[in-house]
């Protein structure tokens, strides 16, 4: 026998077919403990085991799952949802409104690495019937409730502690967590008592961790796996240029640069502006992001309510202007470190930015940190003069982002930036309860962000995956695919 041939694959058909195991690969390992937030390694399992009330697909369409219908009332400060009946957890226990209340309470308490708990402050979540829950909030909910529901899977109160290390992962999803080797491998099998009749089609889903992009590519090509997450953009483009693989782009990552504004040299706003002009966003897009990214000056997604499109291109590549601003700030020849993750993409971005900055008379040097070292420093504002981040918050409602993205928080941010007017503008945006107010307030806030330039975004890039064309009907959510309706075409 030959291992090369054995893993070969067949051609296409269109009708859903039952059976088969979908094999996926990710570059980052699954982190079961991060159930209330996104992790690159969780995309292929999280939404298949742990279901949410509803899921937002790549076009932000709300697809009902455990909730069947919902409504907003009382100046958008109350949210009511009817829950699906006849749903059971993998343990066999029936699903009720109490489970929803429990899940939200854990999230607000900060479990599961919850990242939106700041925005949920003051929320009251109550079971208003066996299969109905009501959320009341001191602030309007119309902007932020959807992504929060999307990030909040319903967990089993009896076993949720097993989530931390993946020893017991119980949800209501179409697949059952069956075998797990931390950091290398995860297998899921079909949930035979799934609430939707006939679903899922697949017998199982396997996830292998392959850290090296080239190796992932080889695995795809050899047919050993059908979907790969975490391929470099170039590799994705290479493989999807043939006809048996599709490029799937969805949601996005926000890339930007933060500055410690409390210290020289970046205590001078001119210098921050200079940097904003110095960065060659197009080069980053072409050479790192495979040309798929947009290069905004603002952190928000373009489809945010009331997006101030006219401000989006405030900063464009203008080295001359940047040089003048550097001189104006008296910072020519200034030396500083730029902290970054020790990962391939941030490294490459750093190389471009460092080159751009030295072209305008600055002298940056890299400070590479592991994610584990980087993040604690980021949350305490100790990353040094400048740093590069990437964040999965791209495309979230601005009202949510000003809390969820550390760099944009009015207080306790990573740049040691504190400005009364900014805090006021941010709070106003959060408190806005209708679209037109949101639009004016977002413009004002955007102007302030651009003026103070304490955080300079330079790229919003869709997340790209390569997928064998035989894999059909995958629902793509921000925090994970669900393979409930997916099947392998023969």
């Amino acid at each position: 026998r030959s291992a090369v041939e054995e893993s070969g694959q067949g051609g296409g058909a269109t009708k859903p077919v039952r059976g088969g195991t979908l094999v996926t690969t990710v570059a980052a390992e699954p982190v079961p403990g991060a159930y209330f937030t996104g992790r690159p390694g969780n995309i292929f399992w999280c939404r298949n085991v742990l279901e949410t009330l509803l899921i937002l697909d790549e076009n932000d369409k709300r697809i009902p799952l455990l909730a069947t219908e919902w409504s907003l009332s009382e100046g958008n400060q109350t949210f009511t949802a009817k829950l699906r009946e006849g749903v059971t957890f993998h343990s066999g226990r029936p699903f009720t409104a109490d489970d929803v209340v429990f899940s939200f309470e854990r999230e607000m308490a900060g479990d599961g690495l919850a990242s939106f708990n700041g925005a949920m402050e003051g929320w009251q979540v109550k079971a208003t019937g066996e299969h109905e829950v009501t959320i009341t909030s001191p602030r309007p909910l119309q902007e932020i409730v959807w992504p929060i529901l999307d990030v909040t899977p319903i967990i089993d109160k009896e076993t949720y502690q097993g989530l931390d290390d993946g020893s017991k992962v119980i949800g209501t999803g179409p697949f059952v967590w069956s075998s797990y080797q931390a950091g290398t491998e995860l297998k899921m099998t079909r949930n035979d008592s799934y609430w939707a009749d006939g679903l899922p089609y697949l017998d199982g889903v396997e996830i292998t961790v392959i850290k090296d992009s080239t190796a992932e590519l080889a695995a795809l090509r050899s047919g050993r796996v059908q979907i790969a997450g975490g391929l470099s953009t170039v590799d994705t483009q290479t493989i999807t240029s043939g006809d048996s693989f599709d490029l799937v782009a969805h949601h996005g990552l926000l890339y930007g640069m933060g500055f410690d504004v409390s210290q020289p040299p970046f205590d001078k706003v001119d210098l921050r502006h200079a940097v904003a002009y110095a960065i060659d966003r197009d080069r980053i897009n072409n050479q790192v992001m495979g040309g798929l990214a947009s290069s905004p000056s603002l952190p928000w997604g373009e489809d945010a309510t009331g997006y101030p499109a006219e401000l989006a291109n405030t900063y464009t590549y203008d080295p001359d202007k940047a040089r003048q601003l550097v001189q104006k700030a008296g910072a020519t020849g200034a030396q500083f470190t730029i902290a970054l993750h020790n990962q391939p993409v941030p490294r490459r971005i750093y190389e471009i930015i460092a080159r751009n900055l030295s072209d305008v008379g600055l002298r940056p040097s890299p400070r590479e940190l592991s994610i584990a070292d980087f993040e604690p420093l980021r949350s305490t504002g100790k990353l040094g003069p400048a740093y590069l981040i990437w964040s999965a918050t791209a495309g979230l409602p601005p009202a949510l982002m000003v809390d969820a993205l550390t760099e944009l928080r009015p207080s306790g941010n990573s740049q040691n930036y504190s400005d009364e007017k900014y805090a006021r503008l941010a709070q106003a945006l959060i408190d806005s309860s209708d679209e037109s107010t949101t639009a004016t307030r977002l413009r004002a806030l955007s102007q302030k962000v651009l003026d103070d330039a304490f955080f300079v975004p330079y790229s919003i890039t869709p997340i790209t995956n390569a997928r064998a064309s035989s894999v059909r009907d995958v629902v793509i959510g921000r925090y994970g695919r669900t393979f409930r309706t997916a099947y392998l075409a023969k």
Partner: protein
Amino acid sequence: MTTDTETTSGAARRESGGAVRRYLAALRTPRGAIGAGLLGLLVLLAVLAPVLFPGGYDDQGDNALAGASGAHWMGTDELGRDIVARTIFGLRTDLTLLLTAVPASAVIGTLMGLAGVISRWLGAGMQRLLDVILGFPGIVLGMSVVLVLGTGWSALFVSILVIGLPLFGRQARAGLQVEQEREYVLAARVLGVRRRTVLTRHVLPNIVDPIVVNAAVYMVVAVFIEAGLSIVGLGIQPPIPSLGAMLNTGARYLEVHPAYVMGPGLVLLLLTLAFTLLSNALNKAVLRR
């Protein structure tokens, strides 16, 4: 009284006096000549890199991952930089690293090996310490260093330095033990020459040869260490190129752009080959007289 007519036996003629002459003899063997020639060429390239490539190693362009062309003999990398230029600058980085860290390792290792001269306990302690270092597989030690120092030049330097210590330390100690028992050393002691003088005058010069040979051998290992750590992403920091770091990135474009790996890979191979040949030749010429 009679005077010997002057004759020398064959065996006597083979051992010889001038150290430099013996090293040069190594270069006259085919291996030595090829190795030295190759190394000379590589060093020359590295030294002349700024002249040959005035654009430097970070001359970014729009034309990323382009194939070979007149302007870029091996094409460009993912940021549109000339691969040949980066390879040569990478070679420069590697050579700088090797030519500082390996000698440092040799000197410190030798001193550790000779510590027994000061006190027996110190010498034994040093040997145990070297045993411990020897127990660490190379890259594992390198990773430990990275844990403490973070990635970058200094971690590579320290890794290469530390990993080499046992090689030189043990060699020096073995040499010391042999040399101390040599009759000419005993003769000097009988004459009443001070210990320190005996050491520097009679013992050390005779230990140097195997140390030099080992240093040449270790150069190859050091290249492996640099490249190994770089490949797993714990090497030198961007944008400075090193051969290993280029292999690390180049391996991501193995399919679209094989020349990206081939260029630095070839230079790396030439580098290790040069040192391998050279150490072989030195070994034959200097140690096996």
